């Protein structure tokens, strides 16, 4: 079931989600946002380990949760997210929006 969206703030689009992920990931990994592309892989290209991914997930749950009640990420799904694009698509799907 899609998470409930706060009507007054409007739904998050894929570009906005990508922006959010880039912003948060650059803070977590201490790297320039421009290196974080949709195609970049978390492990090989960005050097993000499992703890960094969990930091990202916690940050996204907090950020997106402010606008969309009940937004969560299942830890079991993390293994399937290899690239930044995978994460964007995953969040879009969780929010029940078209990709």
């Amino acid at each position, binding site marked *: 079931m899609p998470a409930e969206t706060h009507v007054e703030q409007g739904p998050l689009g894929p570009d906005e989600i990508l922006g959010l992920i880039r912003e948060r990931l650059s803070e977590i990994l*201490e790297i320039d946002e421009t290196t974080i592309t949709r195609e970049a892989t978390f492990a090989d290209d960005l050097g993000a380990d499992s703890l960094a991914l*969990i930091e990202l997930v*916690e940050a996204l749950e907090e950020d997106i949760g402010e606008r969309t009640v009940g937004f969560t990420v299942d830890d079991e799904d993390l293994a399937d997210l290899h690239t930044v694009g995978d994460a964007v698509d995953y969040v879009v799907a969780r929010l029940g929006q078209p990709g």
Partner: protein
Amino acid sequence: MSDSPITIAIDAMGGDNAPGEIVAGALDAVAELGVRVELYGQLEAILEHVPGGIAPPDLEVIDCREVVAMDDEPAAAVRRKKDSSVVRCAQAVREGRAEVMISAGNTGAAMAAALLRMGRIPGIARPAIAVPVPVPGHHPQVLIDAGATVDAAPEWLVQFARMGREYARARWRIEQPSIGLLSNGEEEGKGDELRKTVFDLLRKEAGFVGNVEASDFMQPNRADVIVTDGFTGNVALKALESALRSLAGLVFHTLESTEEARAASRVVLPLLLEAAEAYDPDLTGGAVLLGVKGMCVISHGSSSSRAIVSAARVARECVRADVVQRLRETVSHAG
């Protein structure tokens, strides 16, 4: 910082001797150090160890139902078990209910809870554990990282060195701490690829004295801060602790071995016991997790009540020395 009582969040369920020894230590800390304690854990298990089942005014028991076990995968456990004692301790620091947390439980979970609940200091990619290593007749050396970040990038070790340097300044008032990079030889060029890269990066850091070896631990005037990755640091620390324990065992065994030795021990044993206190991990206090936006003291897994009091003493000292703010001001803006 003012000398008003600080509030310490203590994880009552963490450690081999929890909750009994942790509760006893928390009670002693309140009585001996004049601190306030919030004790997090399963209410009924905690109250069993509180005399008369009634906590003193400066100790508040906060019930939480979940426990992170020693063999739980740290980050996953912290995400799943939000009502665990260690997560609630970190949350208390984040919310300002407590100035500092103490845990003797799963070190990885304490690190993950502190990192995920308090957040990282900007400019610090990964937290590190700083441990004071006793040096006879001298201030302690700071070993960093003693186990928080096992796989570390070269730049992270530079950050560890900066944090260790500032910590040494704050805790022991060393004006310009010397920094050594732990390697398998003193000469430049010794070490694996990580060490060689870090050596080059550390060249321009104030106080860098080059490589040091494991034999430089506990030696005065070699390095005030010994920096390494969490894997090597943890191995070195455990080896050091084990060697000291074996040596102490050998001395005490020898003093019991003959009639003459027993006679001699009546004279020297009290002196040896007093001297040995400098090496007793229960008395030297806990390690601190540096790099997060709050204070976290990690006590060893087999902590006794004395160890918890010592950890509380370290916690109070770190809060008074404003360690976190000092790291934010100096390390996060360092080049």
